[in-house]
């Protein structure tokens, strides 16, 4: 009888903990690894290091979708369902940007994202401006490795 009660308590506690953790990671902030060298001077500066950088992503900006030029954001890929990229916003609505094919004007509610390492980066130069609704958070600081801890 008591073992049943104990298991039930553990299940209840872990369920509540999971729900609270999910809410915090959706509403406040979460920590994600950076893969690849498309943002190279800012994240993953050494090509051959085996350790990925971990960054803190804050989610408060998702309330009103206000972003500024220069923000580093996490967004869902517009072409590959389920993928997430980290890039820097370099163009706001109404500006003219040059893509791989031609020069286009960024429409209302969109933004232009590019990686810091222009040589190896899949970004708006390939798939065009992205809607602001795809953005999943703003990267505010590097948290790992500890010697590079700091703001962006």
């Amino acid at each position, binding site marked *: 009888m008591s073992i049943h009660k104990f298991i039930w308590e553990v299940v209840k506690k872990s369920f509540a903990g999971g729900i609270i953790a999910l809410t915090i990671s959706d509403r406040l902030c979460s920590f994600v690894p950076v893969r690849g060298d498309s943002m190279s001077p800012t994240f993953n500066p050494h090509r051959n290091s085996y350790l990925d950088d971990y960054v803190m992503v804050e989610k408060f900006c998702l309330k009103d979708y206000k972003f500024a030029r220069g923000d580093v954001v996490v967004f869902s890929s517009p*072409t590959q369902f389920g993928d997430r990229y980290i890039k820097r916003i370099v163009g706001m609505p109404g500006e003219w940007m040059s893509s791989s094919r031609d020069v286009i004007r960024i429409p209302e509610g969109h933004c232009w994202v590019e990686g810091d390492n222009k040589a190896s980066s899949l970004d708006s130069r390939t798939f065009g401006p992205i809607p602001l609704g795809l953005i999943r958070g703003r990267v505010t600081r590097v948290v790992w490795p500890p010697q590079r801890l700091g703001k962006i």
Partner: protein
Amino acid sequence: MGSSSSFWSLAFRQGMRSGAFLGEIYCFLHVTTNYVGFVGYAFGPSMNPTLHPSGNFVLAERISNRSQKPIRGDIVVFRSPENPTKTPMKRVIGIEGDCISFVIDPEKNDKSQTIVVPKGHVWVQGDYTHNSRDSRTFGPIPYSLIQGRVLWRVWPFQDFGPLGPTPT
């Protein structure tokens, strides 16, 4: 003195307990509306024969959205590419790879255009094509903008029922 301190410690403990309970309720609501389903409000003439222009509350689910891609005929809630704080509801007309021909402006003339929906995108359109801001204005939308699939109409009550895919 002793009785007052015990009163305050009791009140403090009770307050902490009810605060934690409210926080848990908030977290539970957040997880339910973000991972299971939510009640959305649709207003406007763009889905006219299917939804009333005077306003509807509909029940939408998010579960199938995570694992599989939308099917033609589904009514979906998505974040508008023009203004990310708005979430309109439209019907999915074409999925990736489909060839869509549409009349650009049915009020003025019959000029039509044909495009192929690119990879990872869907073509959404309102049922009332004369007054609807949809993919004909802003183009195909990425899958990741879709928030949920509309299942049931909840209010007004006399039209309570499922809103399944209908042939268009």
